[in-house]
């Protein structure tokens, strides 16, 4: 049986025990196909966060999974490691007994929002560098599958720093069950003797997952797909007024801006580059698993990669708001095709040509990401004496990329 079929078997097995939320499950399975995968599940209480987390981990790691629960009192020794007292007493050496959580392949974090900040900081370090520290000793953490869940509406939550959440590849939102789905859940519970987790078999062992991860890593991405991923992330980051460094944030920053109605005007805190890395992993995984990946698939994937990574100017329902922004992105990409702006840029990169440059300028006043690339070329042409500084789009529109005396930051 091929590795792809085994992955699909795992998805089928989970779907046979978990009612609804098929898209979230599909994304969760896809996200396991790259090394050191991290998944965050967000949902209100009693929707099945912990069940889904345990089903996935048991399907991959069998009994070799360790759960750290934010709901219980968690000590550093249980998450990272504790001192080996006999070694200290007899030999005067500080030896560390590393915790099962560090050594296990399957790592589960239940109710992350209730985890104390010290434990969170240790886990943050583990996710960032793939290592843990205790009593001056370092332990390298092998490849793993980490799944966490939280209910952000819980009143007893700690507010964890945004960079911690940024380390999670995807953030999956679960919904409550419809009437017919509730009946299906009751049938399932009776079928599995009221224990969905204990009866879950190890469908796709970790060693085979490792093989699949290697294969996925070798998938060559089509430059078009890579371009769409980079464009999407850039559209969610770009700001002609440099909001990343600005003290004033949108919407105040956007007053009077030419691009006020664009996607950028709806985003307060932009995406980090980790969004690009995760999107690339997931696009590769889609290609490997299903044999194809289109622009539509990228938009579908983005819905789960972006919600925990950005802050919108106004949020009513994060998934609906994001869907709205992704729909705008679809229109933006189509507009770019109609304006032929990338072919124009392609021509301009070969050589400067005034009529093509004029057309490119027209396109640039409608698109921040394109304007950035064109102004970069303008800088080169000004340095080469082909164009005068006063003639450039950046001067005429008052757009400036951050830099000092011509050297861009």
């Amino acid at each position, binding site marked *: 049986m091929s590795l792809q079929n085994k992955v699909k078997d795992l998805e089928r097995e989970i779907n046979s025990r978990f009612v609804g939320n098929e898209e979230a499950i599909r994304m969760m399975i896809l996200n396991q196909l790259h090394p050191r995968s991290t998944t965050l599940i967000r949902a209100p209480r009693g929707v099945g966060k912990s069940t889904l987390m345990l089903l996935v981990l048991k399907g991959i790691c069998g009994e070799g999974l360790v759960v750290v629960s934010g709901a219980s009192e968690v000590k550093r020794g249980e998450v990272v490691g504790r001192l080996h007292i006999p070694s200290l007493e007899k030999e005067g050496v500080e030896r560390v007994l590393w915790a099962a959580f560090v050594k296990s392949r399957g790592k589960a974090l239940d109710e992350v929002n209730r985890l104390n900040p010290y434990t969170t900081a240790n886990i943050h370090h583990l996710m960032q560098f793939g290592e843990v520290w205790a009593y001056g000793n370092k332990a390298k953490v092998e490849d793993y599958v980490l799944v966490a869940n939280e209910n952000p509406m819980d009143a007893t939550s700690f507010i964890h720093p945004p960079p911690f959440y940024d380390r999670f590849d995807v953030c999956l939102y679960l919904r409550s069950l419809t009437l017919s789905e509730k009946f299906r859940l009751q049938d399932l519970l009776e079928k599995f003797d009221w224990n969905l987790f204990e009866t879950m078999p190890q469908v796709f062992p970790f060693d085979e997952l490792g093989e699949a991860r290697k294969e996925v890593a070798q998938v060559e991405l*089509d*430059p*078009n797909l*890579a*371009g769409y991923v980079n464009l999407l992330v850039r559209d969610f980051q770009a700001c002609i007024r440099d909001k990343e460094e600005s003290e004033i944030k949108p919407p105040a920053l956007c007053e009077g801006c030419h691009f006020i109605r664009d996607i950028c005007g709806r985003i307060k805190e932009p995406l980090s580059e980790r969004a690009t890395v995760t999107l690339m992993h997931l696009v590769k995984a889609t290609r490997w698993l299903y044999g194809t990946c289109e622009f539509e698939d990228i938009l579908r994937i983005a819905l789960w990669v972006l919600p925990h990574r950005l802050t919108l100017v106004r949020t009513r329902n994060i998934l609906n708001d994001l869907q709205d922004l992704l729909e705008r992105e679809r229109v933006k990409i189509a507009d770019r*095709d*109609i304006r*032929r702006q*990338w*072919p*124009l*840029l*392609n*021509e301009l*990169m070969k*050589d400067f*040509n005034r*009529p*093509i440059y004029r*057309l490119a300028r027209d396109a640039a006043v409608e698109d921040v990401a394109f304007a950035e690339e064109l102004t970069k070329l303008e800088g080169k042409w000004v340095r080469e004496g082909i164009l005068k500084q006063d003639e450039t789009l950046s001067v005429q529109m008052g757009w400036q990329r951050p830099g000092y005396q011509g050297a861009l930051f």
Partner: protein
Amino acid sequence: MESEKYRKFLKQQSEKNPVKIEGSLVGERFRISWEDERDRSTLNSSSNLLDSLYLGKDMQETVVVDRKAAAMLQERLRGLEEENIRVRKRIRLMKFAMGALLVALALVSLAFLNANYLQIQLMP
């Protein structure tokens, strides 16, 4: 230094959405056009709403209306709405006039009848 993948992306986009350049780029006499084979094939059957309205052509699955046509249709709808309001006002006025005429006719008939009656009475 630009990434090779970025250049490939631009090249692939150029192949996907070609820009037709007629003449030499070096000289001043050349023409840039957007149209490609894909565009041309869709031009055979009209998706234009105005063509369908005024020329009786069949519409495609998706109807594309450019901004000018949409503005024209909007303007026409606005004109029809105004015309509608004006005609309704006129109908209401006509209804009043007809009512008044009917009342007047009734009064005249009554007066006429009374006059005949008196005339009949006066005659011995």
